[in-house]
C-alpha cells in the first residue's frame, strides 16, 4: 500500500517510515505542511499519517480540511502530541478517520493504519463475513464454524465481528476497546484479554485449528491458516 507520512520530527518520521516499509508498504514522507498538502493532493495514497503541529504555515488540521474540501477521501490518521479529548474531537471533526496520540507503540500505529486502509476499501454494506471455515451472518446474527452453530453473547458477537472485519490484520487492545466497547481510556485490568479468551473458548477450543492468534507486544489477529 502507498502511505504518506507527514511528520516534522526527524526521529519519529524515520522510525515510522522504516517500520511501515518493513511491513511491506510503499512510504512517502513530507516534513512540512505545505509539501504534505501538495503530495496528498497530487498523488494517490491508500492512507495518510498526519502530524497536527507542522511547520510551513499549514498545520495538520488545515491540511486535512483543505484536502477534504477537494473531495479527497483518503483515510487519514492523526498522530499528535495534542492528547486532550477536545483535541481528538476536533481532529475527527475536521475529517480524520483515527487519532493516535504520541508517544505511541509502533505496533499500535501499524495496526491502525492497516485497519484504516481496509475501512477505505469496504464499500457497501456486507451481509456475511467469512474467515476460513468461520462464517458470520450479519443479518440473522448467526455464527457457524465448519457448519457447526456457535452461540455467542451480544458482546462476544461484536468482538468477533470486529476481528473478522480485520481478518489478517493485527488488532490492538485499544482498538478493541474503542471499536467494540466505545471506551476511550485504558483500564488497569486485563479486561480485553479475558473477553478474547472467552471468545476463544467458543470459537477455537472445540476445533482442531485456532483462528484467533495472539500477536506479542501488539494484540490479536484473526487469521485462517493457509491450507
Amino acid at each position, binding site marked *: 500500500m502507498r502511505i504518506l507520512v507527514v511528520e516534522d520530527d526527524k526521529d519519529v518520521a524515520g522510525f515510522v517510515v522504516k517500520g511501515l516499509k518493513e511491513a511491506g508498504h510503499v512510504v512517502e514522507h513530507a516534513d512540512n505542511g505545505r509539501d504534505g498538502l501538495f503530495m496528498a493532493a497530487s498523488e494517490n495514497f491508500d492512507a495518510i499519517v498526519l502530524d497536527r503541529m507542522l511547520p510551513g504555515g499549514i498545520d495538520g488540521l488545515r491540511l486535512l480540511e483543505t484536502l477534504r474540501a477537494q473531495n479527497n477521501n483518503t483515510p487519514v490518521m492523526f498522530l499528535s502530541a495534542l*492528547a*486532550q*479529548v*477536545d483535541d481528538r474531537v476536533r481532529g475527527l471533526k475536521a475529517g480524520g478517520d483515527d487519532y493516535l496520540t504520541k*508517544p505511541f*507503540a509502533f505496533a499500535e500505529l501499524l495496526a491502525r493504519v492497516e485497519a484504516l486502509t481496509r475501512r477505505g476499501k469496504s464499500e457497501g454494506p456486507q451481509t456475511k463475513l467469512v474467515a476460513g471455515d468461520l462464517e458470520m451472518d450479519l443479518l440473522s446474527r448467526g455464527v457457524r464454524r465448519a457448519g457447526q452453530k456457535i452461540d455467542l453473547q451480544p*458482546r462476544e458477537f461484536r468482538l468477533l465481528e470486529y476481528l473478522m472485519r480485520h481478518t489478517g490484520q493485527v488488532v490492538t487492545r485499544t482498538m478493541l476497546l474503542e471499536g467494540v*466497547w466505545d*471506551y*476511550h*481510556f*485504558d*483500564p*488497569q*485490568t*486485563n*479486561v480485553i484479554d*479475558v*473477553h478474547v*479468551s*472467552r471468545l476463544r473458548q467458543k470459537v477455537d477450543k472445540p476445533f482442531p485449528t485456532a483462528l484467533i492468534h495472539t500477536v506479542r*507486544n501488539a494484540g490479536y489477529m484473526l487469521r485462517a491458516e493457509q491450507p
Partner: protein
Amino acid sequence: MRGAVPPPPVPLGKRFDLLRWLHLPRHRLLAHSAGVRFGMIYAGVFALSTIALALFLWWSTAGLLDRQTEAAINADIQGLSERYADGGLITLEETIEQRLMGNIDDDALYLLTDPALHPLAGNLAPPPATLLQAQGLYELSVERAGHSGKAEVQHFVLPGGFHLLVGRDVEVHAQMARLLTDALLWAAGVAMLLGTIGALAVRSLFRITLADVSATASAISAGDLTRRVQVSGRGDEFDRLAETINDMLDRIGRLMDGVRQVSNAIAHDLRTPIARARARLEDAASHAASEADLRAAIERAEVDLDGVVGIFNALLRIAEIEAGARRSAFDDVDLAPLLLDLVDLYGAAAEERGQVLRAEIPASVPAFGDREMIQQAVANLLDNALKFSPDGGTILLAVKVVPGQGPQITVADQGQGIPEADMARATERFFRGECARSTPGSGLGLSLVQAVATLHGGGLRLEDNRPGLRTVLALNTRAIAPRVNATSSLDQRSEPARAA
C-alpha cells in the same frame, strides 16, 4: 472632489485638550488618579447643588418681591379704573389723594396729567414726554425726598389725552438684589473652597483605603502569598471588597499548594520509573552479554516508559477535567446501559479471578453529564475493586437514585479496605496506602474519580465496608442542570439543526 471629503470625526474628548492648551504635562494634574477623579466629581456635584440653591434663593426672594409689586400695581389700577368709571376725572384725582394719604410705607407713586403733561394730582414728577410714547410698564429713575431711586410704573392714556401713571418705588428691591448678589458671590467662594477641601478629603480617603489593597497585591505578585488585605470591621463596601479579595487569595493559595504538591509528587513518582528505565538501558549497554539480554532490557525499559506515559496521561486527564472545559459537552445520559456495559466488561475479568461482580442497577438512571468521564470514573472504581478484592470475594455495583439529587453509584469490595487515617488522603494525587504499595498502580485513579465527581456537582465518599472499601460516587447533576435549562429555549431552537 478630494477637497470635499469631510475631516474624520474627532472623539468628543479630544476636540479640546485642556491640558495641551495649558501646556501642562498630563501626569501633573493626576488625571489618571481615581481619587482625584472622584474628588473632582464630588466638587462638581457640590458646586452644582450650591448654584441650584442660590438660584432658588434668588427666585424666592428678589423674584417674589418683583411679582408682589406687579400685583400691587395691578390691584391699584383695578381700583382706580373703577373710580374713574364712577365719577370721571375729579373722582380719580380725589382717590389718588386719598390713597397717597393712606400709604404708610410711602412707596406708592401716582401721577395724573393733562394732555400737555401738566400734573393734576399725584406725588410723581412728570417724566419727559419722550419717555411716555405708549401705554405699558416702564422702569423709571425717580427723584424723591432728595435721593434718586428706581420705580416701576404703569402708564395709561385716559380718554381726552389725560395720562395716568401708577407705580411703586422699587429702590428697596434693588438694594436687596445687590445684597443678595454679594451674599451669593461670597457663598460661591466658600462653596468652591469647601468643595476643594471635600475633594481632597475624598481623594485621600480613597488613597488610604486602597493603599492597603494595593500594597497587598504588590506583595502577592512579588511572591508573598501569605499577605492579606486588612478588614476594618466596619462592614462597609471596602470591607466586602477586602473579604472578596482575601477569599480569592485563599483560593489561589490552595491552588498553589495543589500545584506544589503535584509537582513534588511528579518529581518523585515519575522520576522513579524514568530512573529505572535509564538504569536498565545503561546497564544493558555496558554489561549485556548477548543480544537477547540487550533486547530483554530494552523491552523492560519500554514497559517502564509506557508506565510513565500512563501517569502523564492520567495527570493531564485529571487537569483537563478539573479545568471544567468539558462541561460544555454535558448532555442527558441514561446511566443504566452505560453501567451494564461496564459490568459486562469487568464481570468477565472478575469471574476469571474467581470473584463475583454483582450489579444492582434500576431500569433507568437519568443523569446529566459527560458519559465518557462517568464511564472512566466507574471503570477506575471497578479496577480498584477487582485489584484489591480477594479471590472468591464479591464486588457490588449498586445505583441509588436520590430524589431531588443525582444518582449515587456505589462500588463495594471485600478487600483490605483503607485505614480510617488514610481515607481523607486517598483521593490526593499519587497517594497510595501502605497495603497498595505492592500492587501495580499510579495512585491517580481515585483522584480522577474525585475530579469527575466535583465536575458533576457531586462528591466521592469513601466508607468502611467491614471488611473492604465502599466508594460512593455521587453525581449531583441537578445542581448543574438548572443553569443549563435556563437556556433551554436556545437549545430547542438548535435541536433541528443538530438533527440535520
